[in-house]
């Protein structure tokens, strides 16, 4: 993570399931089809000449470690998905949208190679913030970030923001079982698995959990005594960050931090804490809460059996002399 609020494209995290596809901007198209009255397609020129929208938003990998770096914050520019879907006139049974990228491969040995795809509720696609983005931080998307265009769902984990987008398929709830999303085995990933001992509950992951991370100091650091600025970022999926607290004694006491700018929904906020580090062993932690009252947990829910939504407070050990 870098010091500024916006992550430069070269430093933007990248998580791919398959190899990056070769795409020509001259022949690239995105097709709207499925349970619609008027399927159609847009080429690059058609897309970028539509009325656009800009939104600052965090993109985080659903499997980002508790103090991990698979998270970035960018200014996305693109076309709202809602009017693009309306133009195709979804039928009355439409409930889901499958977004398909140009990258493809095999998720399981016994499955056929299929394009990367995710299924998102139609209702979510109709929200104002859902975009087909073609710019990041004022420049056309780099290839590794999805050039020429990708989906962006601010507030949701990154897997649904399908890169190298080429098909938007409107489906009914019943269509999912026969879709490429299901056939490829993608529906086995990105699920919340909770085992209470008697029941196993499985549900789809979507909204980003409230989280903060400490950019400095790093774990295991040795410091001469003195005054330091502890800093990091905090973000949440649905609402703005309200407060970030910092502890330097493993959570026994908490101190408020200064936010570098006013927090807003979808984007992250940088926080600072001025720490007078005295000689001894210290455990530094940060804890964020958002406007909806959600607070970072101190520990991982022991019933969780999956590897997603890893948002607990991470201890950073510092030796001060």
């Amino acid at each position: 993570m870098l010091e500024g609020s916006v992550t430069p494209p070269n430093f933007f995290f990248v998580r791919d399931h398959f190899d990056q596809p070769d795409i020509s901007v001259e022949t690239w198209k995105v097709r709207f089809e499925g349970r619609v009255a008027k399927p159609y397609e847009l080429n690059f020129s058609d897309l970028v000449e539509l009325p656009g929208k800009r939104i600052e938003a965090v993109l985080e990998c659903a499997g980002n470690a508790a103090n991990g770096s698979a998270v970035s914050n960018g200014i996305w520019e693109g076309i709202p998905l809602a009017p693009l879907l309306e133009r195709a006139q979804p039928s009355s049974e439409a409930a889901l949208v499958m977004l398909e990228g140009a990258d493809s491969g095999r998720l399981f040995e016994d499955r056929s190679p299929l394009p990367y795809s995710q299924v998102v509720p139609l209702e979510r696609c109709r929200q104002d913030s859902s975009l087909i983005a073609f710019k990041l931080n004022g420049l056309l998307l780099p290839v590794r970030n999805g050039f020429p265009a990708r989906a962006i769902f601010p507030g949701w984990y990154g897997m649904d923001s399908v890169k190298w987008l080429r098909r938007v398929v409107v489906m009914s709830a019943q269509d999912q079982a026969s879709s490429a999303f299901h056939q490829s085995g993608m529906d086995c990933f990105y699920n919340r698995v909770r085992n209470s001992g008697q029941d196993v509950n499985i549900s789809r992951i979507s909204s980003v959990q409230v989280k903060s991370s400490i950019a400095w100091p790093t774990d295991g650091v040795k410091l001469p005594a003195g005054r330091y600025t502890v800093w990091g970022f905090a973000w949440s999926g649905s609402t703005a960050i309200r407060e970030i607290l910092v502890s330097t004694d493993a959570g026994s006491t908490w101190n408020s931090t200064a936010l570098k700018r006013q927090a807003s929904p979808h984007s992250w906020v940088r926080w600072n804490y001025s720490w007078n580090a005295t000689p001894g062993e210290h455990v530094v932690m940060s804890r964020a809460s958002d406007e909806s009252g959600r607070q970072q947990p101190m520990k991982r829910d022991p019933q969780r059996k999956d590897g997603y939504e890893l948002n607990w407070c991470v201890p950073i050990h510092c030796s001060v002399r």
Partner: protein
Amino acid sequence: MNLIGACRFIAASGSIILATSLYAQDCAQPGLSAPERLSRFRDLDAQAQSAMQQKRFSEAVRLYREAICLAPESPRGLYGLGVAQAASGDFLNARESLRKADRIQPTSPLPLAMEVRINFSLDDIDALKANLREEAQRFPRDAQLHALLARFLAEKKLETLALAESLRAQQGGSGDADTTVQLAILENAAGAYEDAIRNAAAVERRTELPEKLRASAAGVAGLSYASVGQSDEAITHLQGAIRLDPSRENSYLALADVFERAQKYPEAVAVLKQGWAKIPDSTAFLLQLGSDLIRIEKYREGIDTLRELLHRDPKADQAYISIADAARKMGNSEQELQALHDLSRHKPDYPMIHVLIARAMLNGGAIDYPKVLGELALAEKAAPEDPDVYYLRGKVFIATNRYREAATALNRSIELRPLEPGPYYQLARLYQKMGKSELAKEQFGRLKYLEAAPSN
């Protein structure tokens, strides 16, 4: 008025519509017959065009208004009025006139194309995009129109829309080599390197085309190859660009850049010298050449090159810094200081200039400590939280036996940048000099602790 070729529009609107029953309310109409009105209209149109050519835009607006009183539904008159209104800065009314012209004669792309320019001037990008969509829908195969729009948008730095229009020109069937090179330039800028290479290399290969155009194409191919990490191909194409048009400075600079990225500085120097010899009036080579000469330890030649640059362009800030850098490496602190003072004179607010001067003074032979402190006072004024100010001040105070002030300054430096080892070392040495061995030991201990921690 010549965006698309006014002649095409005028030919299309050859039959001037004279709607005798549709006079605007504010038009004082004499009792003219239809042929008289036509004749008067043509006369006013000619006068208005003449006024436009002589940049008498307000007069042109007046004349076109008068002409439109005679022929309110004339697309030619309305278009002329729109252009004249735009030229006189009345963009909102210009847009209205052009929209009316477009409604009356939707077969001509000219009013919409002119509206693109007006919407750009009004900074109304949504309306500009609407114009482009309209043009795409009504004139999808007009490659010339889309190529010209692309050129205008590229000039105005709307590169994404320029690429969109350039692609429309290609899809409209434009086989024009100029348009293909323009598309390749935009694709290269967009990061669509494979597309750019294919288009540019195709033009570069066509020996019947003018060499300047082929040189542009070779240059774009070279840049795109460099961007995908194929430096051998990049070098071949950029050398080809230089061969085809030795007067293009960008080809030399791009080729030198490829060599620099591969840390082949002698090759970069050779290319830049070749460019400078071919285009001796250009200053574009000198900073890069001077810096590369310093990199290969040809300090004297590097300094001479940078001085030549400063002779031509005294505002080239980086040249002063590079001269100072070369002088320091040569052990010539006087020359280093001179370069920094020159920079300070030309740009007093250059970041950290006083710290740089103070540091250079401390590296010199006979040090004038009060002067160093004077520079540091100026540095503190410019950046009160710069730890280097206090670190250097601490060193001056140690050298002048002002130990207590030195300790204060060094502690302030540590407070501002606690992970920098230098101040701890200076503080430890200071305490030794002051006979405070416990405090010295403590500082040496912190220094050792800090240096042993790789995770910092």
